[in-house]
């Protein structure tokens, strides 16, 4: 099998979609590298350039070599450095690890090449390389460097004084008052000059730091969100404020935007909607029967560079309209829109770990299995049963088995995850197309519409159905790791008999 075919196969076998991260920078991917099932974790560095930690678990015997390389979206594989061979982790049978330098702030993907008895296969894992932290200096190191700097400062003044006052005198002569004064004057002038240089250096550093904070450090992109009543509908309009990263948006599983609405502070209302694009800046969506209140909006988009972003907003929703005589709404809702209204979050009722079951509509139940430990990667696994306690048959839902949204109660973390992990499928598809030379690398930030054509949802859904034939149909797992301890609410969405059902779980994640 050719490598290209294996890449396509690996992609086709991955039912996954949009990527979201607020406070959750690590990337988890579960899929295939050609014939080899792999689970890849990428921990991007906090600053760029920096080293990303890659770990790859290959669920297959007879693997001879695992290698990883970072590919920048507009340089392609031919513009990547030679792959780094991942080393088998001590004490592990099939877990490999590597470190890769990410040198530029741009959309990257980590190519994981697996070689074994079944040939070579490649998994493409999109990673956003962007500085997420401003690293401070260790105060002790700062103090030591300041002392050494002061020492050099006075040393240089001593040299200048000796050079001016004594070096021009014949051996044995002592400087007279005139020479001493001259030396003192020039030493003072030198000290002033040095202080001016140090001050200039400080100004330069402050300018660099401001440039880093304003232009290179990641800031969640804010949108303006306004809800209005119109023709018997409540319509939410989202307007992008920051067009700095303004490459055209590509549809991720057929949707230009995956919007999550969460009512604050109780987290008791949740919606996963798909606004339609009016212009490059503006999006609109008709609101479902959500109660009025203050909502936090998270909108996942993927740009044509392959960079996946989460835009955020706050919005006050008015009461649902009661005017039943109103003319029919102007906007038709997306058939894949779904929402849930449930009990408010109550901190006292949340326990750490253990198995928990929540009721879905139509008598279905969803059970969360497994233990919870922060910073320890363990799948979030859910099992769905019908009213009789029999396994429920889950249907593909926008090309995948399930969606989940994870939010820390205080809003510090929000992530949109899938059984294939945290990555954006559109981003992965773009990298695969570019690997085959089927998508341009020179794209315009001015353009409204993307030029790259991504595979259709039906294509990946069909392959997913084929792959999942025979597998347990009521069991979904999400590879994810909670980035911080704290109280979380997790919404899990599945489709049964054409209807999307949402289960909500609360969890206390403790530090490991």
């Amino acid at each position, binding site marked *: 099998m050719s490598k290209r075919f294996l890449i396509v196969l690996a992609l086709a076998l991955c039912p996954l979609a949009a990527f979201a991260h607020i406070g959750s920078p690590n990337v988890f991917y579960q899929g295939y590298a050609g014939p080899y099932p792999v689970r890849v974790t990428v921990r991007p560095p906090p600053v760029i350039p920096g080293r990303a930690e890659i770990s790859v678990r290959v669920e297959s015997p007879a693997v001879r070599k695992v290698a990883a390389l970072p590919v920048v979206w507009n340089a392609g594989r*031919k*513009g990547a450095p*030679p792959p780094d061979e991942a080393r088998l982790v001590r004490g592990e049978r099939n877990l490999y690890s590597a470190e890769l330098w990410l040198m530029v702030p*741009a959309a990257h993907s980590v190519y994981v090449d697996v070689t074994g008895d079944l040939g070579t296969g490649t998994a493409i894992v999109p990673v956003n390389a962007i500085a997420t932290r401003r690293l401070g200096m260790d105060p002790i190191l700062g103090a030591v460097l300041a002392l050494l700097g002061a020492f050099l400062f006075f040393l240089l003044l001593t040299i200048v004084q000796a*050079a*001016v006052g*004594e070096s*021009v005198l014949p051996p044995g002569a002592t400087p007279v008052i005139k020479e001493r004064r001259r030396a003192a004057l020039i030493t003072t002038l030198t000290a002033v000059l040095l202080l001016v240089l140090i001050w200039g250096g400080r100004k330069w550093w402050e300018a660099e730091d401001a440039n880093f904070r304003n232009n290179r450090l990641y800031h969640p992109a804010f949108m303006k969100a306004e809800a209005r009543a119109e023709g018997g509908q409540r319509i939410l309009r989202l307007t992008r404020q920051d067009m700095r990263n303004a490459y055209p948006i590509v549809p991720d599983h057929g949707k230009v935007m995956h919007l999550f609405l969460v009512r604050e502070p109780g987290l008791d209302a949740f919606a996963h909607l798909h606004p339609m694009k009016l212009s490059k800046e503006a999006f609109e969506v008709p609101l479902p029967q959500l109660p009025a209140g203050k909502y936090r909006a998270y909108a996942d988009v993927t740009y044509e560079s392959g960079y996946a972003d989460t835009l955020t907003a706050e919005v006050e929703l008015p009461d649902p309209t009661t005017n039943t005589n109103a003319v029919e709404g102007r906007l038709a809702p997306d058939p894949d829109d779904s929402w849930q209204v449930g009990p408010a979050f109550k901190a006292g009722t949340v326990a750490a770990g253990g198995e928990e079951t929540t009721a879905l509509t139509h008598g279905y139940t969803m059970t969360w299995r497994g233990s919870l430990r922060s910073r320890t990667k363990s799948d979030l696994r859910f099992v769905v049963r019908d009213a009789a306690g029999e396994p429920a048959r889950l249907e593909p839902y926008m090309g995948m088995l399930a969606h989940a949204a994870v939010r820390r109660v205080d809003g510090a973390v929000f992530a949109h995850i899938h059984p294939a992990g945290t990555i954006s499928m559109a981003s992965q598809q773009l990298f695969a197309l570019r690997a085959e030379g089927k998508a341009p690398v020179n794209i315009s930030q001015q353009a409204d519409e993307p030029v790259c054509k991504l595979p259709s949802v039906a294509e990946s859904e069909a392959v997913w159905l084929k792959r999942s034939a025979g597998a347990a149909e009521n069991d979904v797992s999400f590879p994810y790791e909670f980035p911080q301890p704290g109280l979380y609410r997790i919404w899990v969405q599945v489709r049964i008999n054409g209807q999307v059902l949402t289960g909500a779980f609360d969890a206390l994640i403790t530090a490991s």
Partner: protein
Amino acid sequence: MGIARATKLRWASTAIALAYMSVIAGMAWILPIFPGRPLLGPIYNPVDHMVPLPFPLLLVLPAIALDLLRNWIGVRRGWKHHWSLALLSGCLFFAIFLPVQWKFSKFLISPAADNWFFVGNKWEYGARVGEWCHEFWDVTNPKWNPPATAASLGWALLLAMASSRIGLALGNWMAKVKR
């Protein structure tokens, strides 16, 4: 200027300029002989040999002029002499170096310099080689490389004279060092 003042050599500035040029030009000729490849990405310009610095600045021409001026004026004491020498040197350096290097830069970015001697075609692996490689940068990016204006040229002339005066002061001091 400083070292030339401190030495007794007639062609000290020329010798120093030649030393600088031969070190840089030597690197430009020797480094590309050795194979090398980038181990970090992104690689927009695939290179398989080491990439040298650009061809050195043509400092030797203004240096010859400075030596001629110094030898013509001679060494005398007094602030008038020092200041006039410094101002004249600054003007001479500016008047010769600016047009010479401007024309030479134009040649270096032209395809005529794409050879082993002038290493005009050597770009680092992160450079996105294109048409801009043959254009003056102030044309492609006026924000980073503002075009030459009367004010910027005036500053350059002023700095040339100031650095000549500082160099002369250092040279005078060096010539007097006894222990």
